[in-house]
């Protein structure tokens, strides 16, 4: 079994729900975002970029690409970063020495460091901590804990707390546009494979940062939007 995720950019509406549920479910401390959504070339919220005389604002969610050839895993001196049997790149918080070499190595800038002891948010009484409230260990390795140690690196785990129970990652569960599809790459009947075959909606897949030869297991579907869409073109809509 090998987990993969598809992000259909033609469907993505740029709402950032994936980023927020990711943070909420995974108890990501203040300042830490495993998942982020910006429009390529127009990083300011609600702006466009001029392309070929037209405008574009193509939303592109980016989280850990779960690389088959993960530079972060190669970089990690202690083996804290490792790939589990499902192909998911995880961090063992107990083994991370906080050298941040993995952050240097990751071309996607998805790795986040606990620069301070996570604070929780002020509540009516004391502090309130959101997120999955239990530790998750994989072969003894601490791959998730709501109580983050200071000085360690963290990142998307494909929601190991849910996927280890057969569920989908929170971002895929919550995407209101159904733009995120998760499943077993090896299983031809999985949601992932079905979507990849174009059985749901035929689209062209591609991966981010090919120049880094990372072989991601997060695959994007190209948007069908035309750059000159301001003008539009005729005769493409079939009457039914």
């Amino acid at each position, binding site marked *: 079994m090998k987990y993969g995720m598809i992000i259909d950019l033609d469907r993505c509406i740029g709402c950032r729900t994936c980023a927020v549920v990711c943070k909420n479910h995974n108890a990501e401390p203040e300042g830490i975002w495993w998942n982020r959504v910006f429009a390529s070339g127009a990083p300011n919220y609600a702006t466009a970029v001029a392309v070929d005389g037209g405008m574009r604002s193509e939303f592109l969610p980016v989280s850990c690409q779960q690389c088959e050839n993960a530079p972060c*895993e190669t970089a990690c001196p202690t083996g804290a970063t490792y790939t589990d049997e499902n192909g998911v790149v995880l961090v063992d918080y107990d083994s991370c020495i906080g050298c941040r070499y993995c952050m240097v190595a990751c071309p996607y*800038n998805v790795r986040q460091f606990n620069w301070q002891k996570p604070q929780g948010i002020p509540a009516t009484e004391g502090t309130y901590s959101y997120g999955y409230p239990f530790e998750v260990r994989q072969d003894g390795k601490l791959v998730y804990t709501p109580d983050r140690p200071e000085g360690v690196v963290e990142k998307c785990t494909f929601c190991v707390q849910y996927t280890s129970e057969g569920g989908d990652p929170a971002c895929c569960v919550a995407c209101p546009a159904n733009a995120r599809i998760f499943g077993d790459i090896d299983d031809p009947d999985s949601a992932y494979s079905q979507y990849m075959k174009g059985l749901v909606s035929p689209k062209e897949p591609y991966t981010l940062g090919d120049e880094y030869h990372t072989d991601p297991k997060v695959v994007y579907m190209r948007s069908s939007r035309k*750059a000159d869409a301001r003008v539009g073109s005729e005769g493409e809509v079939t009457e039914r």
Partner: protein
Amino acid sequence: MKETLLGRSGKALLACAIAAAVGLGAWIAMMNGGLLATTSMSNIFNWGLLIAVFAFLVGFGAGGQFVASYVVLGRRERLMPYATVMQGVAVAGAAGAGVAILADLGHPLHMLALLMHPNPASPLTWDMIALTVFIVVAVIGWLALARDWKSKRVWMAIGLVAALALQVVEGCLFALQSARAWWHSFIMPVDFIVVAFVCGLALAVIVSAASKRQDALGAARSFANLLLAFVILHVVLSLIEVIGLAFESTGGAAMALSLIGRYIVLYLIELALPLAAVLFLKVKEVQGDRAAHDHLIGPSKREYAWSSVLVIVGMFAHRLMLLYPALGGATLFTGLSNQPSAEWAYPVSTGFFAGARETWALTQAYLPSPVEWLSALLPLGIAGLIAILAFGIAARWHDRRPMSED
């Protein structure tokens, strides 16, 4: 002799010890206060001053060894007295570098994990091994020189190999990261060796210039001539890197170039300042030679020393410039999914928001915090301590030796 030695180096020792203690205090403050509150680092600029100091000191570690091995293996008898000193510098630099990298760890308590299950694929593991091996070899080499072992040439040869390996590994530590266009080049390990030579030789010039020996000026001149060559080599390699980047039409290269532009002053300090310093010495030498054919006059000891200090300042700038163009900006570049180009930097979650600063950014202007500057005194102080102790001990051993070489 003994009195003077202790008197002179006693003050230096005390200064280094105080520096190390202050650095230690700063480090403890960083660990207690949290890196967010005490440093200027972020998820963009996630390696800061301590890594620059690490690279800086490692240059002296390997550089010291290079000079010592060059002198001993090349049988440069005139320079032989400086070999032991430079071998001490090798030990000190490497040890200081080790301290720097340990001090930079976010969670040093987990260090056991590195010993229990090191990742053989990680250049950082190689680096830890290379550094440890080098420190051991350098200490033995220093003993061999200080105690004048018969096998000292063998140890100098082994030391040379260890130092070369260390610098290659250091270079690879950076060069293998394809995410960082500024580093991702085969020139990087070569330049690491070159820069180590520059550091070692510059210090050797200073040491010889500071020496009261009769031929000190001549020794300084010998080292300075070599220094000239390596500084020029470094400048040439650097220019090749920049030209290479300019021809690379990737977002990463564009980002690196733009960051070089932003830190152009620092880059000029790295390249122009050492070049000017060594050229100044060379010009002075040539002028001196012309003025008196039979009598070697040229730069004064003071000029040698100060010029070399400028070279070392340049090398410190170089270690900072190792970081700025590589870590000053995002490394993910995207384009429209249905168009080929991908050259727009993609924002990074800085981690700053918890410190009431921007949540997202494309670049970060990193200026080490005061605490970071103070923390740098820990590895620098320890390196200084070791170097001075090594010098003092070697001198004492030397004095007790029945037959002095000079």
